[in-house]
């Protein structure tokens, strides 16, 4: 059983084992190393693909809906006691929503399903290497309006 990482803001990473985290982070490293040297169109395609990648939240939502609907149906048609199974599934999902843990989480992490934050780390490493942030020197001065505009543009709200 994985203990809780108290300082981790990403609630899924909070309950992911060291080995699984290492593997997920290594995958980002490998992918960025590979795509950093690819032509622009390939990087572009990769970014679109990453944008469409299913985050772990969607898997967990479908999972709880499947479990909840099945047991609720059994509770209505067979024995009302099935309702306790519905309650348990939904209780865990509430725990996931607020703190992070959910029973299917270890399995999904084992097969490498990522959080949106993890996918975004890969996205922004590729964007930076492609030169999206070239107009932003950053760090040197305190006030810089044109740089703020470049940064906004680079992330897509410009």
């Amino acid at each position, binding site marked *: 059983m994985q203990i809780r990482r108290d300082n981790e803001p990403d609630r899924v990473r909070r309950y992911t084992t060291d080995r699984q985290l290492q593997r997920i982070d290594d995958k980002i490293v490998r992918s960025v190393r590979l795509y950093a040297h690819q032509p*622009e169109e390939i990087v572009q395609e990769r970014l679109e693909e990453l*944008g469409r990648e299913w985050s772990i939240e969607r898997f967990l*939502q479908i999972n709880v809906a499947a479990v909840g609907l099945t047991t609720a149906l059994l509770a209505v048609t067979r024995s009302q*006691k099935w309702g306790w199974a519905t309650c348990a599934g939904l209780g865990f999902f509430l725990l996931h929503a607020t703190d992070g843990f959910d029973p299917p989480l270890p399995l999904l992490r084992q097969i490498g399903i990522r959080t949106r934050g993890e996918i*975004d780390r890969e996205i*922004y490493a590729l964007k930076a290497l492609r030169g999206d942030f070239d107009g932003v020197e950053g760090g040197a001065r305190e006030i810089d309006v044109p740089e703020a505009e470049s940064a906004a543009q680079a992330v*897509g709200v410009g």
Partner: protein
Amino acid sequence: MYSTHEHLEGDRVRRRTGRTAQLRIDETTRRNIRYYACQSRAALDDRIAELDRERDMEQVLETNASILALAGATLGTTVNRKFFLLTGTVLGFLTQHAVTGWCPPVPLFRRMGVRTRSEIDQEKYALKALRGDFRGLRQAGQPPRVEDALRAVEASTLSHANST
């Protein structure tokens, strides 16, 4: 010139958000970027940590859905099976949300300004760039500095003790 927001096109919640609500959310992100561009490094650090903790759309929706569905299931088990109708409806909508990115409470939360993780990360990475995290990755005549880019996007808290 390539597009700079192709990575957002897969965000289904964005695609299904009304124009006014979407403009307002993007305007908020833009305003925050402009504001923090003029702040000290410490303020940027704090803001980036705060963004990592910001409650995103999935979390808000999941909390909301699980409370309603759980209330229905509890009442359905202890009082009257008809309450399972509430559980069924909510879970049906949750499935719809997972697949299409839309369900009835989404427009309400969007109007309240709840952002998706992709939108929060837009602000986060713009601020990281302004902090100088991506500085010097590309220099004329040299290969891109891949390892520096990777370091710049490392998880904010170093979670694994055995990381290199």
